[in-house]
């Protein structure tokens, strides 16, 4: 690595060193409490997957380049030079971590592994060593924001093909829009994913609840956040923020996508609208009597996987349970404390990397399979696209006898007149 490249990368490192990051880098006492917290370590048993080990890869670079003792006395200062080999270690640490923050729950100091891995991801971007698929996807999202006027008409025509399937779930009055788009003054802007499965059930439920809603032109997922690029993350967020401001909505409702929800809720700043997960919105409709569900529709044991970015990191824990109580009398918890639920093993961009990460995702999530099997449930439902894909992959790989569903789809299928 030449001196200029190293200096540039250290500049990026420096840009991440806020007060919290200094605390995380200065505080670990190597107590070992985090050892069993990581699903990767619990499933694969390798030391490099312990949270404190991941931290140490960042910490030794920090000591070498930002601490006096590490600079002048490296062997005692436990410091390490930023080299090509160090970049390989950063990649291994960052892209074997799903950013689930289960380890943070165990750490007595609350050291945030996801934040520390954000340094690794930023350095990889600076060295052009990040997974190019994630950057490609982020750039696609940004381009959509720039060129939406060119694509609008085709998108609106494409939605018309879905209308019959929406009406099949909930009949609309003649003349009412089935999937409204670009409605100024709507109360709620729904931000879906590209897939029809993310739009059809949601539309039926909004219509059943009598919501004044409008569908976003943009997809909710933020690939800039997956790849750890603050600039791309903001550009992708801004598309939705600007659309919400233009339409003067009161609420932005994020579909079943964990990262999309957490990033929009926690990183988009203050706005004249609130940000909600679709699970929160559905629970609200049920509490207000705006929708009602047929409890006999799914007459089997059901368990629910809390997506890390929605539950542990986003605080949406009670809402899905409220919904499930309206759907079944046989709900079975995966973990005694939902905030300590095992990650599905697909977050942090790993699912988006598809077959490239499939073998690792299957090996590193064995504890999740054991947890699901332990419930005896035959429906495993969740509220995140990443989790759904990963759990479906696990079901196929480990031959689990369980249907993997989206919670919103179950709600839409169980709708009855309120």
């Amino acid at each position: 690595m030449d001196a200029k490249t190293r200096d540039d990368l250290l500049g990026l490192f420096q840009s991440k060193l806020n007060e919290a990051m200094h605390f995380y880098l200065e505080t670990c006492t190597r107590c070992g409490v985090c050892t069993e917290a990581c699903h990767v370590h619990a499933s694969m048993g390798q030391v490099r997957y312990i949270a404190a080990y991941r931290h140490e890869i960042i910490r030794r670079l920090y000591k070498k380049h930002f601490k006096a003792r590490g600079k002048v006395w490296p062997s005692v200062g436990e410091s390490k030079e930023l080299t090509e080999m160090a970049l390989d270690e950063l990649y291994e640490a960052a892209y074997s971590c799903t950013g689930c923050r289960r380890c943070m729950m165990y750490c007595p100091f609350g050291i945030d592994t996801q934040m520390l891995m954000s340094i690794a991801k930023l350095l990889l971007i600076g060295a052009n060593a990040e997974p190019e698929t994630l950057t490609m996807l982020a750039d696609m999202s940004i381009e959509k924001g720039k060129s939406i006027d060119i694509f609008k008409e085709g998108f609106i025509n494409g939605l018309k093909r879905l209308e019959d399937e929406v009406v099949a779930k909930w009949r609309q009055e003649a003349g009412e829009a089935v999937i409204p788009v670009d409605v100024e003054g709507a109360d709620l802007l729904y931000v879906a994913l590209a897939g029809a499965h993310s739009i059809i059930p949601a539309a039926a439920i909004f219509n059943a609840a009598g919501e004044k809603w409008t569908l976003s032109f943009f997809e909710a997922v933020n690939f800039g956040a997956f790849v750890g690029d603050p600039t791309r993350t903001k550009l992708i967020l801004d598309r939705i923020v600007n659309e919400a401001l233009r339409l003067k909505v009161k609420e932005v409702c994020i579909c079943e996508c964990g990262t999309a929800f957490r990033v929009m809720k926690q990183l988009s700043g203050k706005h004249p609208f609130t940000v909600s997960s679709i699970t929160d919105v559905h629970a609200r409709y049920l509490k207000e009597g705006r929708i009602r569900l047929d409890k006999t529709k799914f007459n089997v044991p059901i368990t629910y996987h809390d997506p890390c970015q929605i539950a542990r990191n986003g605080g949406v824990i009670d809402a899905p349970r409220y919904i499930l109580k309206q759907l079944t009398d046989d709900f079975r918890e995966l973990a005694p404390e939902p905030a300590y639920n095992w990650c599905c093993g697909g977050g942090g961009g790993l699912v988006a990397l598809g077959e490239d990460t499939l073998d690792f995702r299957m090996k590193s999530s064995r504890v999740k399979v054991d947890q699901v099997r332990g419930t005896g449930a035959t429906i495993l439902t969740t509220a995140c696209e990443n989790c759904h894909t990963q759990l479906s992959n696990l079901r196929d790989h480990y031959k689990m006898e369980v249907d993997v569903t989206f919670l919103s789809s179950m709600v839409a299928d169980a709708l009855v007149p309120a």
Partner: protein
Amino acid sequence: MSDDIKISKTFDLKGLACPMPVVKVSKGIKDVEVGDVIEAISTDPGSLTDIPAWARTTGNEVIKTEQDDKVIRFYIKRNA
């Protein structure tokens, strides 16, 4: 299917979860020669914005898009 376009490879993207349609097209187009055309078949309305935006950022070209009641067909020329 468009009769006037010579297709080198077809990708069935129907029902794939986000973001696999774009990932599969992005990787798959590298299997054909520059100048060749691939066909991508999708059921998701989001692909009507995703695929053209991806093409613009990668230097490839959506030369034709067809929609019927069931599917969306993209014809994409590899330029890069």
